[in-house]
């Protein structure tokens, strides 16, 4: 039977981090857990890419052979960036900060073929994940990756391109139906001139900017892009929109519009201070109510990261890690579109569920997995980015069970202890009949088969 604090600690880490690390499982004091999860190590940017300046003439003046080599190099770097970020998530102890950065990647969904730009974008998310929303939003939409992804390079005074303004409002701040087409047009005018230089640094091009008067969300003025942000944030709907996203990723797959409204009011009142909001959530009582425990289906990254961390997984090739992300339907740095990942039950269909249930055995017990991800048909696309798809029927992953064995082997009654560590649900016990059939062996063999069995159950998909 789990103690009340223990329940809180587990839930806290399941939501605000990627699960409670096995190494911290003795942690039973909520106060200490809170301190640990709020730890923020000095910010250190991910630095994987080597290409610096990206010359406009780069592609045009190259021979076909040189172009191919350049693109190959870029694809390799994007792969490295993906793998580096996942490894960071598995190894970090700035738990909440990095988990939030991962969340923001889904919210500010973006893909770009220039590794440097994507790297900068990821570091903006990581650096400002707990900053106030305005700071983060401004940083993200001024990033080269986002400006290019949403075509703002093509947005000029003489020929406005509305895509950037539209997605900013529809998907990043207000949601559909909370602004008019006119607002999109006027905002687009305000964002003219926003661009970036060859190094991916933000640049404002006066020549392309429309300095004229605009009417936006009921206000009139010679607005520029920063003004647009300011006015958007004045709308309470923006807080509601963001809190709805927070709710889905941190509280429950099921919406509760009253609770979200309350959260939004507090968020708005504080000036969109994300870290205050999260502190108040974590320190509340309602966050730990039974109905929220295990109420979310883990996203693919939330499935993969804890396994990597707790078993010190070593993939013998990056391709394997990328292929798994692909099969499960979530590849860091490659959201399907600007709306990000739908999440929740959308992760689940007949084949993805079976693959998820087998994942632990595939990664930790070298079980055969005969599934192949789809060919997306794009000659320049994803398959090129991930290198070849891993086609052999068994992943070659090295896992380390030493720590796990030391922890659990020798306990008089390991089953409830192990179950409590592996499964997010409280007061849950594995089915005895299944156990008698599938938990085999004694000692370390028994621990291994127990853990693999628990991780093969649908309950393991929940957090």
């Amino acid at each position, binding site marked *: 039977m789990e103690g009340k604090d223990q329940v809180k600690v587990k839930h806290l880490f399941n939501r605000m981090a990627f699960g409670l690390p096995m190494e911290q499982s003795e942690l039973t004091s909520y106060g200490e857990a809170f301190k640990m999860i709020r730890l923020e190590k000095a910010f250190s940017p991910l630095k994987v890419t080597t290409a610096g300046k990206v010359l406009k003439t780069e592609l045009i003046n190259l021979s076909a052979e040189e172009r191919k080599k350049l693109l190959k190099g870029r694809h390799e770097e994007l792969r490295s960036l993906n793998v580096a970020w996942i490894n960071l998530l598995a190894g970090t102890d700035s738990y909440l900060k990095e988990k939030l950065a991962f969340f923001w990647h889904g919210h500010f969904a973006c893909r770009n073929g220039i590794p440097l730009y994507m790297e900068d974008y990821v570091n903006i998310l990581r650096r400002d994940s707990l900053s106030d929303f305005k700071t983060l939003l401004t940083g993200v939409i001024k990033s080269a990756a986002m400006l290019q992804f949403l075509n703002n390079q093509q947005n000029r005074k003489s020929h406005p391109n509305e895509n950037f303004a539209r997605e900013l409002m529809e998907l990043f701040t207000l949601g559909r139906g909370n602004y008019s087409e006119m607002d999109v047009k006027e905002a687009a005018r305000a964002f003219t001139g926003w661009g970036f230089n060859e190094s991916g640094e933000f640049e404002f091009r006066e020549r392309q900017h429309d300095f004229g008067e605009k009417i936006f969300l009921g206000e009139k003025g010679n607005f520029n892009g920063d003004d647009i942000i300011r006015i958007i944030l004045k709308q309470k709907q923006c807080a509601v929109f963001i809190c709805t996203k927070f709710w889905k990723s941190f509280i429950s797959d099921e919406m509760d519009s009253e609770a979200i409204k309350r959260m939004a009011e507090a968020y708005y009142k504080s000036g969109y201070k994300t870290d205050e909001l999260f502190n108040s959530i974590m320190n509340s009582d309602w966050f730990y109510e039974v109905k929220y425990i295990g109420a979310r289906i883990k996203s693919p990254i939330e499935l993969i990261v804890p396994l990597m961390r707790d078993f010190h997984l070593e993939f013998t090739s990056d391709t394997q890690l990328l292929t798994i992300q692909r099969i499960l339907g979530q590849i860091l740095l490659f959201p*399907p579109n600007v709306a990000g990942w739908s999440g929740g039950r959308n992760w*689940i269909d007949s084949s993805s569920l*079976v693959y998820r249930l087998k994942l632990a055995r595939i990664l930790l017990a070298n079980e055969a997995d005969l599934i192949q991800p789809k060919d*997306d048909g794009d000659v320049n*696309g994803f398959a090129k980015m991930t290198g070849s798809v891993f086609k052999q029927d068994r992943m070659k992953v090295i896992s380390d069970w030493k720590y796990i064995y030391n922890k659990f082997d020798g306990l008089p009654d390991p089953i409830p202890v192990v179950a409590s560590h592996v499964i997010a649900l409280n007061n849950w016990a594995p089915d005895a009949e299944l156990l008698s059939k599938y938990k085999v062996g004694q000692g370390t063999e028994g621990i291994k088969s127990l853990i693999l069995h628990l991780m093969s159950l649908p309950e393991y998909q929940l957090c």
Partner: protein
Amino acid sequence: MNRRKFLQTSALASTALFLPRFLKGQTLPETNKPLVVIQLTGGNDALNMLVPFRDDNYYRLRPTIGINKSDLLVTGDAGFHPALSGLYRLMDEGNLAIINNIGYPEPDRSHFRAMDIWQSASGSGSFINTGWIGRFLDQMENSKSHFAIEADDTLSLALKGDLRNGLAVKNPERLFRNLSEGYFSDIAGSGKGHTHHQASYLYKTLSETVESADYIYKTSHIYKSGEKYPDTEFSKNLKTISELIISGSETKIYYASLSGFDTHIQQKPRQEQVLKTLDEGLAAFASDLKSNKKFEDVLILIFSEFGRRVEQNASNGTDHGKAGVVLLAGGSLKKKGMINSIPDLSQLDDGDLKYQTDFRNIYATILKKWFHANPDVIIPGFKNELMNFI
């Protein structure tokens, strides 16, 4: 969403021990007439598939990748690409319909977006996370996962519904073995009466998957094709589908994809290769169905997420365009051959083929006329206009 009842095969079809008509000589449930969707992934170049050889613009804009008239399989004002002899024969038999200039307003040139738009049947400005086939399943009473089957390891958006998903299965035998080593059926069984709503949802999905895998495996054994299929992955998938159809599976929709259509570079050899794969596979598939008197009961829909630009690019290829072509095949077409006129290359949309017909009308027509379902509920926010190819 309204749940609307419509014609369903009888209770006999729902049991795991479904026996096809040629084994039981008793009163039959209404014949199952499935749809087979073939997705050409990458953006099929309609203009080289069906060449408007009388239009000088074609040869002017495609100096090196245009196909000579003498190589074409001519039918009226257009000529089939030489690799498409099977389709040409189907056309001749009256078993093929061609709808040119298919697209939708404000088209997207990104593979991902465009394919999502086609699969979800949404407008280009909406992001819907369900597919038209999934929503069709949602509307059916007592629908099961295997009512929509995709010949692949992973499930496309097209087959994902709000309440129900189709089943992705490349190899019925392997799926069955995968699931019923006993382990997963045991696990599925242990989840009955789970009180946690998310857990019970997962257990239910697993049970349904096990049940469907079981059904498909048993059904696929009833008929094993003697037809000679080409040795390609695509043809293997068509063979699996054919065996299920002929075995009498209660599946309503089958889905298969073929990629390789994104011909930015060196289009001629690449397109020839991929069209050959398509054509030979389809020919074997049609022949198999015909030998088993099933061709009249099947409707085949062939589409791609966009067509390609009319003018060739600097790499002897073509870039992403707008409107494309849709092909329909089967033994029960009401309107055959060219349903509308081939593209007029003097009337382009900024260098692209102009769309005349919204693809959603094709889905709506199939849903209404082939399946007697209600397209207005399944395809949201669109004024469906029925066509008359069936």
